[in-house]
C-alpha cells in the first residue's frame, strides 16, 4: 500500500509539473482535440517478457490529455486492463515529450487451459488493480499524427481460485472439494510503440 501511495504521489507530482510546463510553452493552445493512441506494448521484468496491445481515446486541452484506455495484456495470465489515462505533453527544445499515468481495473480473461483432469474441477479468476506510469516521446508527422514511443512501469494484479477434487466418483469416495488461491502481482517495465492520431 505504501508503494502504491508513493507511485501515485510521483504521478500527481509529474502531472502538475508537466501542466505548468505546458502552460508556459503554449499559452495560446486552448483548443479541445480528439486523440487516439494505439500501441503495442512490450512487458518485461527480471522473470519474463511478453506483449500487450492498448488503445487510448480521449481529448487533449492545453497539452493535457485525458482519456479512457483498454487493451490486452498477455503477461503472466492474459487479462484486459481498462483504465483512465492522463498525460501531459511538454517540450524540451524541439523535442516533444510526454508523461503519462494510467490507473484502472485489470479484467481477468485467462486464456490458458484451466482445470486439470482429475485434479482441478473448479476454476475462478478475478481481476485487480492496474496502473502504469511512464514517459514518452512524440514524433509528429502529417498534422496531428504522431509516432509514440514510451517507457514506464506497469503493475497488474489478479487472483485465481482452484477447486480440487481428486475424483467425482461417487459420494463418499472422494475427499471434499479443496480450494486454493493464487494472488498475482505482476510488476513490469513497459515499452510502448504506437501511433497517435
Amino acid at each position, binding site marked *: 500500500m505504501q508503494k502504491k501511495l508513493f507511485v501515485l504521489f510521483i504521478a500527481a507530482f509529474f502531472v502538475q509539473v508537466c501542466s505548468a510546463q505546458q502552460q508556459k510553452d503554449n499559452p495560446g493552445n486552448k483548443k479541445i482535440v480528439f486523440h487516439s493512441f494505439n500501441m503495442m506494448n512490450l512487458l518485461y521484468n527480471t*522473470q*519474463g517478457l511478453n506483449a500487450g496491445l492498448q488503445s487510448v481515446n480521449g481529448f487533449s486541452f492545453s497539452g493535457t490529455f485525458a482519456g479512457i484506455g483498454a487493451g490486452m495484456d498477455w503477461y503472466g495470465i492474459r487479462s484486459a486492463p481498462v483504465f483512465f489515462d492522463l498525460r501531459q505533453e511538454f517540450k524540451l527544445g524541439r523535442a516533444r515529450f510526454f508523461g503519462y499515468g494510467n490507473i484502472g481495473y485489470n479484467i481477468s480473461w485467462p486464456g490458458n487451459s484451466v482445470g486439470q483432469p482429475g485434479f482441478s*474441477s473448479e476454476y475462478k479468476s478475478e481481476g485487480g488493480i492496474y496502473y502504469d506510469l511512464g514517459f514518452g516521446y512524440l514524433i509528429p508527422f502529417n498534422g496531428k499524427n504522431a509516432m509514440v514511443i514510451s517507457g514506464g512501469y506497469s503493475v497488474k494484479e489478479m487472483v485465481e481460485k482452484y477447486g480440487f477434487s481428486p*475424483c467425482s*466418483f*461417487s459420494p*463418499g469416495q472422494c475427499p471434499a472439494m479443496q480450494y486454493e488461491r493464487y494472488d498475482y*502481482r505482476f510488476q513490469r517495465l513497459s515499452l510502448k510503440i504506437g501511433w497517435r492520431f
Partner: protein
Amino acid sequence: MRNGFSPKVLAPVILMLIFGSSCIKDKCTRTYTYLQPVYRTTDEVRANIKSNAPVEIQRTGKIYLKDQFIFMNEPDKGIHIIDNGDPYTPKNVAFIDIPGNIDLAVKGNILYADSYTDLVAIDISNPLQVKLKNVTEGVFPHRQYWGGFVADTGRVITTWEARDTVVVADCGTEGVFGILGRKDMLLVNGCANCSNDWSFALNSSNSPGSQAGIGGSMARFTLVNNNLYTVSHSSLSVFNVTNAEEPLFKKDISIGWDIETIYPFKDKLFIGSMSGMYIFNISNPDEPVQTGTFTHVRSCDPVVADDNYAYVTLRNGSMCNGFVNQLDVVDVKNVAAPFLLKSYPFTNPHGLSKDGNLLLICDGKDGLKINDVSNPNDIKLLSRVEMSETFDVIAWRGLALVVATDGLYQYEYSDPSAPKLISKITF
C-alpha cells in the same frame, strides 16, 4: 530545467522505479489448506465403535435402509443412524465412529462396514446401543491414500485437521511470450496439490435379501443370503457370513481395473466398472463365476438390473474421464452375451433404483428423474424433481430416499408423475 522539472531530480526516481529489482519482480502467493492426520491407537478406535451421540451430517455418503432405520455413511468418519419410523419426521439418533469407513451392508442384526483395510461386524439389534462384534483385519489392502501419503501403520487416523497456509508461489512468467512460461506452471501447481495429505478410499453396498437391508446403486458392498460380496478397484472379494458375527473371508477374484459398483439380482452379480459391466453367476455363492461382459466407453457407471435388462448410467467426471452422459439399457436375457438395447441421453446420471416399472435416476444437477421403463425400447420420463446435485437413490415401497449434496430427501411417489416431498434432513 525550468519549474523544477529537472532530470537531476527525476532521474533518481525513474532509476529507482526501473532498476529497483524488487519493483520489477513478480510477486505471487499461494493460499491453501493442507490436512494433518490425527492418530489414535487401534484399541481406542475399536472402543469407540459404538452408538455415540448423534452428530451433524457434513458429507454425503453411502446409504443403507434396514427396517425403520437409515444407515448413512459419513465418509472416512463413521455411520449416522437415522430413525425413519415416521418418514415425515426422520430423526438422527446416533453416530457410530468408524474411522476410514466408506461402505456398509446389513444382514439381520449385523452391520458390516469397512474401516480402512479392516472389515468390522457390528451388532445393531439395538441401534441406540450397537456393539462391535468382530474385526477381520487386512481384508481390504487396496485402501490407499491420495498423493502417495503414507500413514503410520501402528495407529489409526481418526480425523484430519485443516491448516491454512500462505506460501510464495512461482508466478510462472518465465520465458519469452509465454513459451516455457505459465502453461507449464499450471501443470506443476495442479500436481502439487495431489501431494496434500488426502485420505482416498479406493474401495468401499446394497440389495434385498432374506434378512438384508437395501443399499444404493453406488454401493461396493452387497449381501446375498449368506455371502457378503465387496468390490475393490480391481477385484471381487467373497465373505461367507453364515455365522453373521464372524465373517469368513473366502477369496478374491481379480476382475479388471476401475471397478466401481456391485448390484445383486437373484443368482447374479452385476459389477459396474469404468469400461464396462461384468456379470457373475453366484449359484455357488462362495465361487462366483464370470459369465458375461458388456463393454462401453470409459465413464462412471452404476448399474441396476432385473431378469431381462440391466440399466447402466454412464457419466463423465474428473475421475471417470468419460464424455458421455446417458442411460444404457442392456439386454441380459442371455447373460453370456449381453448387448446394448438402447441408449437415452441424460445430463449427468449417477445412482439409480428400480421399483417395478419405475426407474428412478439421480441426474446430477438436474435432480431426480422418475421414468417409466415398462417398455425398455421406449423409456418415458414421468416426472423430474428439482433439487441440488443428486447422487444416489433407494426406491422402496413407494418411498424414494434421495441423497443430494445438501441433504437426505424422502419423496412419496405413489403418483410417479407428481412425487411429493415428505421430509428432508439438511446437511
